[in-house]
């Protein structure tokens, strides 16, 4: 194992332990534990982005769509199971025990009332089962990525054209989900996801559970990515990034490699999303808009492409700064004639940072460590 992987895992374990101790001592709030847990999920998505873009050279502007799809898939079970508990509770006062059909109708009315129906769409067929819905977290984004990638790569769509295509994919998906009859509650999205069904432990405890799960997922994802890029496979995908025609003349099926990396990273992003949204508590189609995927690319660029720890640094630093600046905690700067309000000006600062990193440190923050 490489030294940087060991250092990363040690730092991750240390900071996880530190956060646990501080949260237990009341030094940091539950909402900040959630912010940190969500940051770890974003770091995992950034690792996936680095694998697909930094190593294989495929600038996907759609990976946050896979992230959000993962979130939707787990969100469906969370919402279903919680609503079921509420419905059963409400019907328990009746003289006759409720039938399965009555419970179903109750759930349908509760979940889909906001979009003016109580019919349960077929895509919710598995929502009652955690194992099945967990399987869908992997299968739905994985299959979407595999089909999309197969079509795009076999037609040899590369470079900026592929980026545009991935962006169109995520935009189309978001616009579809915005519709009320998409079956996923339109622009209302899924909510109440922070309540884990069947768990009576308070939020400050479940927040820590999800934080640990996120840390574990990041560690696992990082190890997997490090293993993938560490050997000859890493050599081949970097070669594809630099000169894919030459790789073909070496006899490697370039399209197969790209498809593998694209699909694998989509699944990693989906798992990250499935851990992120229970901490965020709500998911709606706006999360899938192309801007989210562009941010992901900016984080990886600032952190340093082609270095896994660079992607993690970029995602952690930029997303934490972002939540600090936009959370209203950054003090405004009065200039007399104008007041710099960071909620608005943070984007300008981020854009400037992106330009400066591109010009002055093309290898990103991670590149400064060598």
């Amino acid at each position, binding site marked *: 194992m490489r030294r940087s992987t060991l250092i990363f895992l040690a730092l991750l374990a240390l900071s996880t332990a530190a956060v646990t101790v501080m949260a237990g001592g009341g030094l940091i709030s539950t909402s900040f534990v959630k912010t940190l847990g969500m940051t770890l999920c974003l770091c995992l998505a950034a690792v996936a982005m680095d694998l697909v873009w930094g190593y294989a050279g495929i600038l996907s502007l759609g990976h946050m769509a896979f992230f959000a799809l993962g979130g939707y898939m787990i969100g469906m079970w969370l919402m279903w199971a919680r609503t079921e508990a509420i419905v059963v509770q409400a019907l328990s006062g009746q003289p006759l025990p409720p039938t399965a059909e009555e419970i179903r109708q109750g759930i349908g009315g509760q979940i889909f009332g906001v979009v003016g129906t109580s019919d349960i769409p077929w895509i919710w067929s598995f929502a009652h089962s955690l194992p099945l819905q967990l399987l869908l977290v992997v299968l739905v984004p994985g299959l979407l990525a595999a089909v999309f990638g197969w079509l795009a790569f076999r037609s040899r769509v590369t470079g900026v054209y592929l980026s545009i295509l991935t962006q169109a994919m995520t935009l189309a998906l978001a616009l579809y989900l915005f519709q009320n009859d998409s079956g996923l509650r339109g622009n209302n999205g899924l909510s109440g996801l922070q309540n884990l069904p069947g768990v009576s432990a308070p939020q400050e405890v479940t927040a820590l559970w999800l934080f640990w799960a996120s840390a574990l997922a990041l560690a696992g994802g990082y190890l997997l990515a490090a293993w993938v890029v560490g050997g000859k*496979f890493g*050599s081949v995908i970097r070669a594809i990034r630099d000169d894919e025609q030459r790789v073909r*003349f*070496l006899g490697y*099926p*370039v399209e197969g490699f790209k498809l593998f990396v694209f699909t694998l990273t989509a699944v990693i992003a989906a798992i990250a999303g499935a851990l992120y949204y229970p901490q965020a508590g709500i998911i709606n189609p706006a999360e899938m808009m192309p801007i989210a995927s562009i941010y992901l690319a900016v984080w990886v660029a600032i952190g340093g492409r082609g270095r896994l720890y660079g992607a993690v640094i970029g995602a952690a630093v930029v997303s934490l700064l972002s939540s600090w600046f936009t959370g209203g905690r950054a003090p405004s700067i009065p200039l007399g004639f104008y007041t710099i309000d960071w909620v608005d000006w943070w984007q300008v600062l981020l854009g400037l940072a992106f330009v400066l990193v591109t010009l002055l440190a093309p290898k990103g923050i991670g590149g400064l460590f060598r």
Partner: protein
Amino acid sequence: MSALLEVRGVSVSFDGFRAINNLSFAIDRAELRAVIGPNGAGKTTFMDIVTGKTRPDAGDVIFGDPPRSLLRMTEAQIARAGVGRKFQRPTVFEDQSVFANLMMALNAPRNPFAVLRFRPTSRHRDQVQDLAEEVGLAPHLTRVAGELSHGQKQWLEIGMLLAQDPLLLLVDEPAAGMTLAEREHTTTLLRRLATTRAVVVVEHDMEFVRRLDCRVTVLHEGSVLAEGSLDHVTADPQVIDVYLGRG
């Protein structure tokens, strides 16, 4: 014994320009062949067709044993079937070490899952070491290929071709940018390689072709104008007319 590569009546046009026009010729299993011709004669297009980069409009390209048409195969499949290509400009993966470049080229299963599981054994390392010694890069194995000199990159690319161990080697202007000593080294290597496989050298430089001392095919406007020893073709009045006469 049938030929290793047989090009049958191949034609290809780009926007109405006939780059290759009813081209036919054959190469044996262990043969060194020089392909010469003025600019635009179709030398590079010929290589593109054989390696699968360009699809011809008509004709067929038959290769190997048992003979198979290359036209339905992808570039990667053709490369795996045993066609290796050396580009005019050295194209190595500059971001990676000499060792990684050679290891990538080394004959081993090429599908993504096999590559994912691949871990070099001591046999693979020895093979890479031997190849590096053969092309004079043994002291540079850990260096990044981008740091090598132009000549060393040429040698690295030749090393990568040797690692692929192709049945047919297509070499595009190997002498370009080489010193006299390097040219001699290259000539010796190409002639030695041609004892066990077919080697096709596309070249501009007549002096270099003379050193190769092999059968020569002269291309002109996308078809074969003459074929034979260098003395034979240079004595051909048509060849003098279209090519040598200008010099």
